[in-house]
């Protein structure tokens, strides 16, 4: 039986793991290669690196990190952040990444998804969607309906694009997977945005990774059951050893969720 995946995410700034709240207030959380090795041992199903290095000159550090990681761990590795063209993708794959994740470049130029999928295969194209809930007054009075809009540039720029519509569009363009981050929940530790996750997961046929808000093991259970997520991502929860992947997987397995125990 296909199992639900637990994916630790490492935000990387100039070659170091960092973590902040709501995309701000970064603090150091270690050497990415060492952290990745630890997660692999604990039973992580995949690992995601998100490069948030702002300075262009220091971008190359992520390539070294990917190379060293790929030499040491043998589970799928996804790399995102700052990938803007086919050349960037090739560089990452050559360094040892299995998938790449794109966000801003995909929103600004949707054809990029199509080109990437045709060139390297859908299996390695993950589209990251950063979504934030919007409430229109009209909806509140008449027929209350939840809506989410897409943000780019690491959560700094509102695009006005509807998240559900965008998810359907990226699927059509050839994305192999969606990494869905709730900006409202990210860093809060009070649970994934279950409504958003379910809406997107039901709207597309490709797998959806829930992200943003994981604070305890029950949140993962919610994401997999009510949220219908195929995978769940967390960062600080694992970094600061508040919850071990091993314990989390044992709990989920006991609750009847299909999980790989190793």
């Amino acid at each position, binding site marked *: *039986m*296909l*199992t*639900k*995946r637990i994916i630790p995410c490492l935000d990387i700034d100039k070659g170091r793991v960092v973590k902040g709240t709501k995309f701000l207030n970064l603090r150091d959380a270690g050497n990415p290669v060492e952290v990745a090795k630890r997660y*692999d041992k604990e039973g992580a*199903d995949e690992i995601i690196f998100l490069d948030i290095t702002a300075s262009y000159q220091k971008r190359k550090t992520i390539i070294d990190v990917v190379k060293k990681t*790929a*030499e040491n761990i*043998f*589970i*799928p590795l996804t790399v995102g952040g700052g990938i803007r063209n086919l050349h960037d993708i090739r560089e990452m*794959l*050559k*360094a*040892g*990444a*299995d998938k790449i994740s794109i966000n801003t470049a995909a929103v600004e130029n949707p054809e990029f998804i199509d080109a990437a999928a045709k060139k*390297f*295969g*859908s*299996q*390695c194209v993950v589209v990251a969607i950063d979504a934030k809930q919007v409430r229109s007054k009209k909806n509140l009075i008449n027929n209350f309906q939840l809506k989410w809009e897409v943000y780019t540039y690491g959560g700094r720029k509102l695009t006005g694009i509807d998240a559900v519509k965008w998810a359907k569009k990226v699927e059509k363009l050839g994305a*192999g*997977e969606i990494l869905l981050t709730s900006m409202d929940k990210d860093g809060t530790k009070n649970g994934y945005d279950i409504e958003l996750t379910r809406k997107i997961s039901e709207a597309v*046929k*490709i*797998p959806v990774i829930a992200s943003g808000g994981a604070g305890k093991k029950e949140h993962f259970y919610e994401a997999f059951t009510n949220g219908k997520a*195929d*995978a769940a991502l967390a960062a600080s929860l694992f970094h600061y050893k508040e919850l071990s992947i091993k314990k989390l997987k044992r709990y989920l397995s006991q609750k009847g969720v299909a999980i*790989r125990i*190793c």
Partner: protein
Amino acid sequence: MITIIDCGMGNLRSVAKAFEHIGKKTIITSDRKKILKSSLVVLPGVGSFTAAMTNLKKLNLTETVKNIITVGKPFLGLCLGLQILFEKSEEGNCLGLGIFHGKVRKFSYKRNLKIPHMGWNNIKLQITNYPSTLMSHDRTGKLQIFKDIPDNSFFYFVHSYYVEPKDKKIIATTTNYGINFASSVFYKNIFATQFHPEKSQKNGLKLLKNYVDYTGN
């Protein structure tokens, strides 16, 4: 020497790294002569069936691959490297290598499953009835290449199509995703998997090691 065929697609480095990890050097190449001289040929592949076949043709490697297989050189196919061994696929109009009878089919959306089939799934080991000369196995019929790998072990998959061999006896493992499909095949010198041993942690590395040992490399 172990060669990994470079068709210009996919993450060959991860395949090479996995071999390195079990102490085996490899060369990544699309050079016909080097491929013919090697003692084990690995054909990895991601992307589409048509693209993989087109690239093989462009590199003039279609006949080379057919040759090494028919002369009995050890051959390891990974993912698309398994699929193109069959006659044809529902993905595009391109013909495959036709080493095995049967075709490549797409998972059905009707079963309410996410496609691609992506993530970790179990493999069910099949008991072979073939004589040991064709498929090396122990007395119980368990294939030697799965030595120390328990039944129902987890491997990593990412694909939207699966192979349907006509000769069911070549099926080495099955996996369930809405239906039971052939997740690896084994016959004489050929071993090919739908899953990615190079991305399947300990079990994957063990399987690669078993196959390398089995082929005497």
